[in-house]
């Protein structure tokens, strides 16, 4: 007997929406009605996201002086927004001509690369451990979040307390244990200081990666592991052929978040090195911050930071192509 097929979802809404005004029904086509519903949300997004973004992008093409009170301006909700002098690509050309920009860019790429690799590997490793059953696992999972939940200024101060040449706990304990005769100066040269920054930031951010990986692992069906075991797969084979492929979307997310966070990291530099010694820990975000807020050059400052935005978008696109392009989610 042929069974009547029923759609599992409710019937599609009619193509015309009806609303009432003053007791009279007003019939609106579906399209305008949908726009009407999302309009408040769109207005908020335009006001708090799109407009500031557009304004800051425009600033990167102008000669900004915050204190200027004369000249052309637009009045918006009682606030005067000066229309600074348009200088075209001058700010961008100026920063591209600065050797410090390029040195900071290569340093940023090193920082981001090292941080993404460290945070991803450590995050994944810890997630694998915490995915196993052992006594104290719930406590370990809770403690895991502590570094991530700390403010970055606190993280910086904490690690100064550990690594400092004069006061640092690390040097103190090593000397007491007789493992060191003098103190190690972790911040003495730029490369060492940069690697300390990478590791401290990884310590702060890896727990979040762990959390994401752990959530991904717990959504993998046990049946897949059981089937792999029946086929004779060992631990590493199960990891290679079951866990990793299933974690691909999570891996994409972790890589994108770590990359963006790595590019934008500023507060630890502020607390630990201020870009020194001799600019050797100056990254693009620090350079942009300094240019804007120390030199009050908001035009070149925003231009520097927009090149960073461009890089983030480019890398996100690349990750998407490399990791998700051939990934097809299960139906």
């Amino acid at each position, binding site marked *: 007997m042929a069974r009547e097929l029923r759609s599992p979802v409710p019937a599609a809404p009619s193509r015309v929406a009806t609303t009432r005004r003053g007791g009279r029904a007003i019939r609106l086509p579906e399209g305008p009605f949908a726009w009407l519903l999302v309009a408040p949300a769109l207005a908020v997004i335009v006001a708090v996201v799109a407009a500031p973004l557009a304004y800051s992008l425009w600033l990167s093409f102008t000669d900004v002086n915050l204190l200027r009170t004369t000249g052309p301006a637009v009045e918006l909700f009682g606030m005067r927004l000066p229309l600074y002098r348009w200088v075209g690509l001058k700010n961008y050309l100026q920063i591209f001509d600065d050797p410090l920009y390029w040195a900071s860019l290569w340093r940023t790429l090193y920082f981001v690369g090292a941080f993404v690799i460290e945070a991803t590997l450590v995050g994944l490793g810890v997630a694998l451990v915490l995915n196993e059953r052992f006594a104290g696992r719930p406590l370990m999972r809770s403690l895991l979040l502590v570094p991530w939940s700390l403010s970055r200024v606190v993280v910086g101060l904490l690690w100064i307390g550990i690594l400092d040449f004069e006061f640092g706990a690390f040097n103190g304990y090593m000397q007491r244990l007789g493992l060191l005769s003098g103190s190690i100066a972790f911040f003495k040269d730029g490369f060492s200081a940069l690697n300390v920054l990478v590791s401290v930031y990884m310590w702060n951010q890896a727990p979040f990666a762990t959390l994401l990986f752990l959530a991904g692992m717990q959504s993998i069906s046990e049946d897949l592991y059981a089937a792999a075991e029946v086929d004779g797969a060992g631990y590493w084979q199960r990891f290679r052929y079951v866990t990793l492929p299933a974690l691909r979307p999570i891996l994409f997310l972790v890589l994108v978040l770590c990359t963006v966070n790595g590019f934008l990291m500023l507060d630890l530099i502020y607390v630990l090195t201020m870009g020194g*010694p001799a600019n050797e820990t100056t990254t693009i975000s620090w350079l942009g911050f300094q240019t804007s807020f120390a030199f*009050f050059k908001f035009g070149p400052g925003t231009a520097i930071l927009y090149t960073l935005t461009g890089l983030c978008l480019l890398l996100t696109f690349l990750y998407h192509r490399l990791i998700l392009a051939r990934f097809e989610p299960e139906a």
Partner: protein
Amino acid sequence: MSPISRRRFLGTAGMLGAGAMLAAEGALRPARADKPINFSGWVFKPDTVKDYVDFYNKKYAGQVKYEAIPWPNYHPTMETRAFSGEIVDVMYCTHNNRERWFENGLLRPIDDLPGADELKKKMTPANLDSLKSKDGSKLLGLPYFTSLFVLIYNEPMLQQAGIKAPAKSWDELVEHCAKLKKDKVSDTPYLPNWNNSPSGTMPQFMSDCFSDGANVFDAKNRVIVDQEPGAARAMERWQKVYKAELVNPEVLTKTSSTDTHRIFWTGRYAYHTNHSYYLKTIAGEPENSKLAPKKAKLANYPGNGQSYMWTDSYVLNAKSKALEDAWKLTKFLGGNLNGDWYVQRQWCLISGLDNPYPEMYDHPDIIASYDRWIDLKLLREQYKKGRVIAAYKEPWYGEYDTKAVAIVHNLIRGGTTVPKGLKELAALQKSLA
């Protein structure tokens, strides 16, 4: 008990009601200043500031609202507020932002205000110059504090090494440090203020150049250190002490002068150069410093004794709608309202923050207070040798001052030769001017 008549009841109730209304309206309180005043400063002992603002409001019937803003973004925040139309009547302003605020109309000169001329006469000429506009014609604010670079030494450590008196010359200082290291009294005996912030390396650089008889800027505020033998001598000495590992190798990445001076608290260093107001915590706070009380001493700055001096200030907003009251508050903060140096004296007593009014230092409370941590007479002598610059009034100065740190750090670590490093400094200034 006699009954209360209706008339008496109404009369009493009416009087009570009127009294309550008058109290609520403030008619029974002292007269208030005409308009409320907004006052902002960067975070430094905000509770102390709040206390004296409360004192002012009570004593002078003021309506001052105080707000402390974190130091790192203080000046950009104030500019952004001005940009949005907010008027902060009285503001802190560092020496190197004053001219910029003046040129852009954020602050107003105070020469024409009542009592300004008397205060000018009471200030030391060098500090007065530094508070003036670039062309020297306008006074842009009243002093919040003044400071200069000083040399501090650890007396017990020198005694332990058999050194009878602190170094009088830079060569002697290096000699002492080498001996202390060789005798294993200290691993790193010298702690210069080479930190990475604007208050560290470059003011220290200027101080050591001045003390070696070098000019850093010419009369037109151009950097001329590449032509000054004294600057080359100072930098050769810096390279020497760094190479000989006589200094803390991490001092280059310290993020503030405050962090740097705290290292000296440990008592593991023989000599330290830093801002004069750190004398108070180093030699006067036993709860923090192992060199207190008075184990750390002030010495004459080596060489010719000159060092870099600066004056930070209170300024008046050019758009203040309550100029009279704002000026009254500014005089209370940076001068002697009604003849009382209350705030200036409080800063001396509480934090060892100095001011450019010499007559203040005759006050018995101040003499007694300084005596608990340092030789006040020697400090006053040091102030007479303080040198101010005018270059910070140039629009390029902030950027030069920050970017120059990397060049000097490179120079210290031997990444470049002294002549080349000094030429780079001059070239940097030229590129920004």
